[in-house]
């Protein structure tokens, strides 16, 4: 199935734990030790440098202040929970808008719908959401080029 989306190959993806439009001062992400990010590897995506550094330390998540947002320059795709309001808040923020993924609008948004569970793949959910999830990721990958 991944073969149908060659644009995913080699792209870096980062799963942000949460981003609140009212507080964009920190970027928190899941590391390779978390199942959500492990699923990315199954789809042929890589992890950016900061995520790999935090993973080596054995942690499940890491966080970096928004002032150092240039540390995320190698991130192609962002995945997070939210809606369009969040995207607009990100683009309006002087620091967050400098992230290449935000500037290219290469953000996959999960909401309070079945797709929201796509991030945590279980044997039951995979057949339901896998196609939609991969399609969204591929669309973000295309925008990041």
């Amino acid at each position, binding site marked *: 199935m991944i073969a149908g989306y060659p644009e995913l190959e080699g792209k870096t993806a980062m799963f942000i734990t949460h981003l609140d439009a009212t*507080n964009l001062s920190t970027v928190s992400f899941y590391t390779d030790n978390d199942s959500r990010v492990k699923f990315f590897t199954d789809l042929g995506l890589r992890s950016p440098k900061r995520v790999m550094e935090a993973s080596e330390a054995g942690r499940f998540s890491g966080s970096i202040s928004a002032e150092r947002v240039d540390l995320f320059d190698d991130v192609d795709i962002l995945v997070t*929970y*939210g809606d369009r309001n969040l995207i607009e808040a990100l683009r309006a923020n*002087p620091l967050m808008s400098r992230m290449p993924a935000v500037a290219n609008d290469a953000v996959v948004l*999960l909401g309070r719908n079945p797709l929201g569970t796509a991030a945590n793949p279980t044997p039951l959910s995979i057949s339901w959401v896998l196609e939609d999830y991969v399609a969204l990721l591929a669309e973000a990958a295309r925008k990041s080029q």
Partner: protein
Amino acid sequence: MTADPIEASGGAAFAGRSNSLRILWLAAMIFACIVLCVLSVAFGTRDVGWNDIVAAVGGHIDSIGQAAVAVRIPRTLLALLAGAALGLAGAIMQGVTRNPLADPGILGVNMGASLAVVIGVVWFDMTSAYAYIWVAILGAGGAAVFVYTIGSLGRGGATPLKLALAGAATSIAFSSLVMALVLPRNDIAGSIQTWRIGGVGGATFESISHVLPFLAVGFAISLLSARKLNSLALGDDLAAGLGERVAFARATAALGAILLCGATTAICGPIGFLGLVVPHLCRLLIGVDHRWLLPFSALNGACLLIAADIAGRVIARPAEIEVGIVTAFIGAPFFIWIVRRQRVREL
């Protein structure tokens, strides 16, 4: 009204505190505040050169360094306002309840505001800033009334210990309720968890402008209650004998404190321990006359919160430690020290 009994017994070194000494402390605190504001804009998780700082203050956000400084400016302003509000609210709560352990966090007021906000977000999809503030104020007021009622049950009325216990139990109960509400909501669980730690990271000029009118009214009501609090400090009977309407005085002062706490919690989340530590520090320096104590507590609270925010941004690079955690580190040992002091009695 010459020798304040508490002042005289509080330590010979501070007996007979003169107004000139108080003015000196006030000036020193204002100076410290200005210095801390400058430091807060200049230092953070990112090292920024002087040119970038000057450019950012002038309004440019061309480079990432300038953008970082530009974000720090409203953050510093919010830390100043929130610190002043919490320090002042703590001083008022300690004056109203005559309880040295009174603090918005310990009396459950912060938690009440948090629970109200979480209910609004989870059940009513609340997003407007004004809704946040009003709901937080209502929650803070409701919790204050609730804790005071429970603490007044039984013999002896609202003694310091009973109030602190009622507040702690209520905080824990509300905290569990918040967790129960948030658990099924995977999408906002992370945001609410971060918000509950309490921090000034979400500061923008727009969000500050929403909360400013509430803070202004809260500051006004609180600072005008200084004389009433002085009378209340003499005891209910003596205050009534001096012509003070005790219940009304308590209610207005408490209203000011609740406005300040609610508005601050709405935008920053619950920040604890500041309202506890600051009035005690100020009493050591400037005495128990509320006409001096209240403004000084506000200044001191502002300084402490800005300093805590700077520390949180500098210690854990490239991550940040939220201000709520830093104040807990400072406040918890201080809380233990207060409780263990020989003369923990009504103020």
